[in-house]
Each structure stands twice: as C-alpha cells, then as structure tokens.
C-alpha cells in the first residue's frame, strides 16, 4: 500500500511541485477567464494573466525564501 502511495505521490509530483502555487495559478486562470466571459476584452485579460503570474511568482519565491530562512 505504501508502494502505491509512493508511486501516486511521485506521479503527482511530476506535474505539481508546489501545490499552493499551482492552485493559485489555476484560480488566476479561472478568474481571468470569468472576466473575459463577463465582457473584459481578451488582450487586457491576457495582460492581466501575465501580471498575475508574475505576482504569484513573487509570492511563491518570498514564501520559499522565508521558509528556507527559518
């Protein structure tokens, strides 16, 4: 059973390293998509997506730096 757990964990780990970061990115994409569906023009939405990705990257790096600094 622990072998199966290890295999599933390894398989999942291939796609997701930091689950909080991955989840935040998924939420960002959902929010931007909803904004487009509600009428936001696509190009500003794409720019918002880029800015959001950079913001989330900064958040993730700061979190990691604080964790490693402890």
């Amino acid at each position: 059973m622990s072998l199966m757990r290890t295999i599933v964990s390894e398989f999942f780990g291939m796609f997701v390293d930091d689950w909080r970061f991955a989840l935040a990115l998924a939420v960002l994409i959902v929010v931007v998509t909803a904004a487009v569906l509600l009428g936001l023009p696509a190009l500003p939405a794409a720019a918002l997506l880029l800015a959001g990705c950079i913001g989330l990257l900064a958040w993730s790096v700061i979190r990691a730096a604080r964790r490693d600094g402890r």
Partner: protein
Amino acid sequence: MKPRRSPGRPAQLEGQASDRRADIIAGFVAFKAVLLEGVEVVFIVIAVGATRGLTLVASAGALAAVVVVGIVGALLHKPLSRVPENTLKFIVGLMLAAFGVFWTGEGLGAEWPGADLALFAIFAALALASWLILSAARRSTGSDAA
C-alpha cells in the same frame, strides 16, 4: 568509467557517481522528466491538430522535432553539461511559462501584438521579473541561490 572530477564537488558525491545504483536512479529521473515532456507533446499535438483534422501532420511535426532534438542533444550534451543545472532549469522554466501565458492568452481570444513575436516579449518580461524577485529574495535572506 571513472567520473571526471569537478572542482567544488563534494567527495560524497564523487563516490556516489561511480555507484551503479546512481546510474539507475539517474535513468529513472531522466525517464520521469522526458515522460512529462512527452505528455506535453501529446497535448500540443492534440491542441494543434485535432480541432482542424490535422492530427497526422501535427504528429509528423512532433516526431520530426523529437529527431532534431535528439541530434542536437547528442551534439551539445558535453558543452551543456558544463552549464549549472539550476541555470538550465531556470531558463527552461521561463520558456515554459512564456509559452503557457502566450497560449492561454490565445485560448482566451487575445491577439498578441506582433503575433508569435510576442513570445519573446513575454519571455523577456518574465525573465526581468524573475531576476528582480530573486535579487530581492537573496537580499532579504542573505543567501547565495542559483
């Protein structure tokens, strides 16, 4: 084969490099990484080809790319092995993020200024932002990261 000695490489790692088990583990790690990229290729082929009935053409293109990458890898693996691993991962991560933002934007219906050339601008924006974020993080922790 005796491993080449690298300056600054810990003696423990030097010992492990000649361990057969290290070869098997390296093989599994490489298998995992390439399998993941292979899954991405399948998704790209489906996204590019299936909606327009061009799956065969897209698959042929992907196969050709595999052959080219294999040849380039065989020719460049020695000089590439001198590039620090973290630097390689950083650049590849930036490229993947740029492609991801570009394609998600196109999926939302955005027409990026300059069409495909916008990829370079997105890459540059992510690279600049990443460099600034890392510089700030290094200053705040006083660490010497990648």
